[in-house]
Structure formats: C-alpha cells, structure tokens
C-alpha cells in the first residue's frame, strides 16, 4: 500500500467546512431566537451558546473517543478513554481507511456535529427551560445519546488490510447516512419530542398569541444555516472531491426545492406565502438532503427538497392535533425531514454515483429496508433515553421555570437581561 501523505487541498476544505459548521450553531440561535417572543429571545439563544461550550470541552475529554474510537471494537461505542487529541498533530484521520487530512481536522469537523445536534433540541422547549438544567441536560445527552449514536452511524472503524475493527452498528449494516440524517436530525427530533413532553405546554399555549418577534433575525439564522450547511454536507466528503461537489450542488438544489414546496403549500392552504415559511422550508430542505446528498442525482435532490418542503409544512400542524408543545417544531422539521431524507436514499440512491441503487433505479427494497432500520433504531433510542434523562432532571433540580418567570419572560428570570433597549429613554420600560 502506498503511504498516504497529507493533502493540503483536502485539509483546507475540511478546515473551512469545520468553521462553516461551527457557524451553524449561532445561526440556529438566531433562527430560533427570532421565532420566540422578545421576552425570551436571549434564553433561546443562550441555550445554543452554552451547548457550544459544554460539548467542546467534553469532546476533548472523552467525546471524540466514544464516537470515533475503535479500540473497544464495539458496534455500540468507541473507546471509553480520554481523547488524547493533544499529541495528534501529525496523525492522519482514520475511519474505515486513512484520509489525507490531519486527525485533528477530522476531530474538529465532527465536534461541530456533536454541538449542533443537542442545540437543535432546544427549539422544543422554548420560553420555559431553566438555563442551568439545560446545560446539565446537554452534558448528559451527548454522553449517553449523541456520542454513541454517532459511533453507530459515522464510525467506519480501523481498516487494516481487509479487516475492519470497531465500526459502528449501522455503519457495518450498510445503512447510508452521508452527513447526519439519522445521527443528527432524527436523533434531535426524537429528543425534542421527548423533552416537549417532559416540560409540558407553555402557559397560554394555543390561547395567547406567540408570534415571532423578529423575522429578519429568523431569516439571518436560516441564511447562516444554509451557508454553513455546505460545510456540513459537502465537508462530509472529508476532501475536496467530485463527491463534495455533488453534495454541494444537491444541498443547494434540495433547499431551493423545499423553499418552493413550503411556501406553495402555505399559499394554497393559508392564502399567503410567508417569510417564516420560506425560512422554515429552507431548513426542512437542508435537513432532508443531509443523509442523501452524495447518493442521488441533482434532479432527485430537487424532488427530495420539494417533498420535504411540503411534508414538513404539513407536519408542523401535528402538534396542535396531538397536543404537545414542540414550540419551534423540532419534530415537524428535523424528525420528519430527517426521515424523509433517510428513506429517500432507498428510493433515489443510484449506483452511478456510489455503487448503490435505490428502488427507482431498480435496486429493489433492500436499501430501503436498511434505511428503515437506521431510522427506527435511532428514533427509538433517542426518544426513550431522552425521556429518562429529562424526567431525571425534572425530578431533581427541576427543568421548568416558575410560572411567574415564564409570564414575565424567562430572559429576566434566568439572565437578568432584556434583549432590546431601543427607546433609550425609559430604560426597562418593558
């Protein structure tokens, strides 16, 4: 075997992608922050920010090894040891083969995924969570949910000759997830549902109006997400290759399709295409194409986007029927979008690209079956374990703020701050 030497070009792309994916979490903070009322905008954003803090530290201590270690040779988790990333300056990334990028670049890139996944969950419990309890939740959740699930899906193990050790369960099974439809979106979506149930409905839900306080902020967030998502999806090729370019094009096209799908649904159902709809559609499209982006042709990406845009626009209404207050639609967008995208591979996957044919290309239902296993396993595990963690926290330190604080606004109660002071005269008049 030839010795693999570092490729500066691949490294440049993975580093740039890592920065792009980091930006997605503040992007999410603005997307979510704009959607809540002004009195809880800061708390909404702070949930994302503290997630960056907590997960980054845990990643360096043990997270990276639980997710990508292969020393324990287990399909369920990597190695239970400290990460030891400090000595890895000249090591190349190794995950089912040696990649010509520094191990630390791979670790940085994957860290950003571990950050945004729990941050996504926060949308389900807007306006009512204790900040400190949320931080504890994040620490527990990544440890027992995200890190292991990332191992199942993304860890392709250590390949020596033809022997692979320590690959994740779903990865070895052949479940396809290019950039995180199961590990990130279904995972976060199912967890969001669980937490929405644990914390319960906001006071006045479905009675008081809860309009987004700043749609420009929502749009800014969606834009940063879109921009960063090129790193998320095309960066998952772990190199600047044709596959990366395909993932890039598909990301763009699916998102475009979903914007059109969502606002067309709104136009027909509610009479007007809205800004919130366009922003939501973009995110739905990005979610849906995530697992599939390197396995399908651009025309199929457009179709997947369109379906996700329409599907999620309809799905966000579910909570009113079923009666859970998933405040910012983590279920309707991430769980539903993630499922659409993960299953779509089973239909649109084509061997012209990655050696896999889906149903529409005559590959039969085998791939679709595997995809369904991936969806079900991650969804079930995440939902149940999150429910347990959530209840544990609620029973011990409490997860929900006092109703008085909720009414005044959680920003004041939890952070002693107000988001805006535009008047400049009557300080704190609001």
């Amino acid at each position, binding site marked *: 075997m030839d010795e693999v030497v570092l490729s500066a070009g691949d490294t440049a792309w993975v580093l740039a992608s890592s920065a792009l994916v980091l930006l997605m979490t503040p992007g999410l903070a603005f997307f979510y922050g704009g959607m809540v009322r002004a009195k809880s905008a800061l708390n909404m954003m702070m949930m994302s920010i503290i997630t960056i803090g907590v997960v980054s530290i845990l990643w360096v201590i043990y997270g990276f090894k639980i997710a990508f270690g292969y020393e324990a040779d287990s399909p369920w988790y990597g190695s239970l040891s400290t990460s030891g990333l400090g000595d890895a300056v000249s090591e190349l990334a190794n995950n089912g083969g040696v990649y010509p990028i520094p191990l630390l670049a791979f670790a940085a890139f994957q860290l950003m995924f571990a950050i945004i996944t729990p941050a996504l969950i926060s949308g389900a419990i807007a306006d009512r969570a204790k900040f400190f309890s949320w931080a504890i939740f994040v620490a527990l959740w990544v440890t027992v949910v995200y890190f292991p699930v990332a191992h199942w899906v993304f860890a392709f193990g250590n390949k020596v000759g033809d022997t692979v050790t320590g690959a994740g369960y779903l990865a070895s099974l052949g479940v396809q997830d290019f950039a995180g439809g199961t590990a990130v979106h279904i995972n976060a979506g199912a967890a969001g549902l669980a937490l929405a149930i644990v914390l319960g409905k906001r006071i006045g839900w479905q009675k*008081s109006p809860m309009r987004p306080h700043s749609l420009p902020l929502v749009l800014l967030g969606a834009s940063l997400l879109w921009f960063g998502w090129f790193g998320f999806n095309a960066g998952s090729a772990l190199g600047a290759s044709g596959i990366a370019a395909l993932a890039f094009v598909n990301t763009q096209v699916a998102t475009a399709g979903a914007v059109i799908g969502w606002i067309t649904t709104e136009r027909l159902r509610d009479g007007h295409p809205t800004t919130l709809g366009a922003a939501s559609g973009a995110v739905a499209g990005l979610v849906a194409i995530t697992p599939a982006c390197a396995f399908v042709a651009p025309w199929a990406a457009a179709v997947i986007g369109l379906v996700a845009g329409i599907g999620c626009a309809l799905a966000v209404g579910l909570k009113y029927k079923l009666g859970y207050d998933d405040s910012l639609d983590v279920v309707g967008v991430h769980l539903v979008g993630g499922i659409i995208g993960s299953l779509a591979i089973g239909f649109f996957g084509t061997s012209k690209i990655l050696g896999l044919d889906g149903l529409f290309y005559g590959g039969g239902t085998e791939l679709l079956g595997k995809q369904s296993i991936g969806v079900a396993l991650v969804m079930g595990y995440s939902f149940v374990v999150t429910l347990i963690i959530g209840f544990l926290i609620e029973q011990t330190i409490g997860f929900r703020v006092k109703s008085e604080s909720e*009414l005044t606004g959680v920003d*004041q109660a939890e952070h*002693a*701050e*107000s988001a805006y002071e535009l008047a400049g005269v*009557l*300080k*704190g*008049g*609001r």
Partner: protein
Amino acid sequence: MKLITAIIKPGKFDEVKSALRAAGVKGMTVSEVSGVGRQGGHVEVYRGAEYPIDLISKVKIEILAENRDVDSVINTIVKVASTGSIGDGKVWATPVDSVVRVRTGEKGEAAI
C-alpha cells in the same frame, strides 16, 4: 360624557379587552406605558454593573363612555384586571366637553 383611563398589567390586557367588548364597549384606544409605584422593579446586570429597572411595563386603555355607563365600565375593568398583587394599576374618569367622530362629523353620544 367621560373619559375613562385605566392602567393595567400587560398580561391582563387580552382579558380586559374581551370583557369590555362583552359588556358592550365598542371602541377603545390603547398604548404601552411604564409605571412607577409601590410595585418594585428588578435589577439587570451587564458586565458586573447593576442597573435597577424601576419602570414597569403597563398598558393604558382610554375609553370614551356615556355618563350612565361609566360605573359599569370601571367595575368591569377592576374586576377583570385585578390579580390581588401589587401593581394591578388604577382606573380613573375625567370629564369630557365634546366628542366628534372624524369620519362623519357626528357629535356627542352618536360619536362613540
């Protein structure tokens, strides 16, 4: 003709509006104000510097009412807006000399 002015807690506004409508009040004018009173404020902290915020967000409602309706309107507001905790607000009535409806030029009772 009187002008009834009520200062209430923002969280009570929707209820008061509905109750007034149910009681036959056809119109009102509303604004956001800040109140100083017995109700304490809160403290905000920015980079360690403390800002005592003693102005509290309130809603002001102004209603033109015929003399015979004044008491019932005031009673409705007091009943619905009261939570029993400090800061629930005040309601007062002041005399009005004349009223005109801009659209039609109608005056007095016909104008409200």
